[in-house]
């Protein structure tokens, strides 16, 4: 369970120079797609954008099977089969998008991947505002292979736009940055723009 005094949401179980995978502390509740998370180690704060979430058995030999009956389904399944809370795991992956020491924020890959087993935390609103002031990191999300990069970009921009209190000036800046990334690919550009349209 999540400690009430802590903002920890996961623990790193795979780490690379470009991404990390964490096990969520709560079943079925990975952080929102596109949201910003961070990991602290040795005085460095590494930022990642959540690019994937999944819930499954950690044992590749054990697949989830249907458990519902006529009267037992959805949440009731977990009451009737309490072992599921322990035999299922929710994991999420995040693409590294920058790092900071003291007050200085860098929008490029960190020199070291985050440490295995370290805690992943949800970024505060202040952290999101500070980090998303610069937008050059958006291009790092183009390398995502967990989901289509346009969908990840759109999810991240929607998430940051919300955290910034529907900052329309920022949204316009983000849209221009995306336009520069997809200047030679109209279809992909439109996929992102449709995805970040405030009315949607």
């Amino acid at each position, binding site marked *: 369970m999540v400690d009430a005094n802590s903002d920890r949401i996961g623990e790193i179980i795979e780490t690379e120079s470009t991404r990390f995978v964490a096990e969520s502390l709560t079943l079925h509740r990975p952080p929102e797609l596109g949201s910003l998370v961070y990991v602290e180690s040795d005085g460095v704060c590494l930022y990642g954008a959540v690019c994937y979430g999944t819930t499954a058995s950690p*044992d590749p030999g*054990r697949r989830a*099977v*249907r*458990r519902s009956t006529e009267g037992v389904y959805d949440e009731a399944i*977990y*009451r*009737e*089969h*309490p*072992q599921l*809370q*322990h*035999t299922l795991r929710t994991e999420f992956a995040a693409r590294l998008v920058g790092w900071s020491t003291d007050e200085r924020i860098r929008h490029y890959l960190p020199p070291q991947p985050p440490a295995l087993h370290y805690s992943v935390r949800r970024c505060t609103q202040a952290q999101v505002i500070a980090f998303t002031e610069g937008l050059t990191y958006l291009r790092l999300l183009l390398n995502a292979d967990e989901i289509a990069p346009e969908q990840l970009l759109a999810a991240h921009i929607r998430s940051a736009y919300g955290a910034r209190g529907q900052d329309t000036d920022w949204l316009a800046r983000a849209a221009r940055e995306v336009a520069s990334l997809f200047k030679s690919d109209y279809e992909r550009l439109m996929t992102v723009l449709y995805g970040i349209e405030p009315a949607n």
Partner: protein
Amino acid sequence: MPLDIDKLYLQVQEMASAIPASAARAQLAEAQRRLRQADADKLRKKLDEREKGKPKIPWLVAEPVDTLSAILPAPPPPADFSVAAADGSTIPPDRHSEVRFYVINVGQTILTYGSSPGAVLGASGDLYHTEEELFFDAGNKHIPIEGRRLGIRMSVEEMDGLLDAGCKAPSPAIAICDGSLILWQLQSKDEDQDFCTHYLERFLHALGAFRNMGIPVVSYISYPGSGEVANSLRLLLCDDTNRRCQDCPQDTSDQRLCRYIGGLRDRHLFQGLLNPGERSDILISQSQILEKYGDHKIQFFYTDVGGEIARVEAPSWVMGDREMLDLVHSVIYDQCQRSSQYPPYPPALIEAHEQAVISTGERQMVENLVEQVLAAQGHDYVRSAKDRSKRSRGV
């Protein structure tokens, strides 16, 4: 590929065609009819007579506590209850290695149902390497703990693990393990009697602790292979005119039915006789080893768990207590209804097994760990040439 699959294919076909088909169904129905009509008093009398000098019964028979034929439906389980389970797994001593050790890993589960559902899953593994651990009576008899003896030691460790889980399970609880509570392996005349006594005492001590805590302890046997009820039925059918089965002319229909039942397991007799949830009456096992079980003589019943006949064993103090027996019966059927597979199997045992099992990768990790630590301390780790030839196969 030296195994000749084409030849085996023909033999598999022969084997399949030798399985009795529909012609045997009428005989099975007749056997089940006779079981429903079985006179328990007559059986007890016959058993008594055989005890007193008539030809000994050449097979293990089930003695009914009450009847041989009663069928009882599963009562509903309590609103709140829990199930403790344990299972074990080993890495046996490796005769191809210079260092001797074995590992026993016991998986434990506590599943709690009702108003505050919850689960506790865990495992406790130990590596045994001292002389006292590797050998029974190391200073004197020096009997190696391996093979069957390691299996017995694991059964005892499992029971201790089950007791540990049972202590923590919210009441009312049942404690369940996989397999039999009858340690028939200890019956072997070849086995050292002090070894048998030592491990049987530990096993019975755990059963005694369950009794003191008022927790019913049972074992669950899926697809049971025993034929004690079938044998009891044969004894009832026997007209006792022939001193030995070998001399029986098999002239009468009962004699022919007896021969047919001789090829059956108890699960065949109860399949179709019991409906899902129902159980047989309580039966007393006559395994020789149970003479040493004192107050914990093992009794059993068969139950249709919904797709399979299972055998449930428990000490007589569980089976003789109607409240405990009903709790066991209802919880086992409830467990099987919660199973995600068909035929069903109790989820508490599935999870205990998952905790206990030592995978091939983990076995390799233990071996690597031993090799690394020995090397770091300046010891050579040399394996046998035969083992090495199997690991790196040259052409």
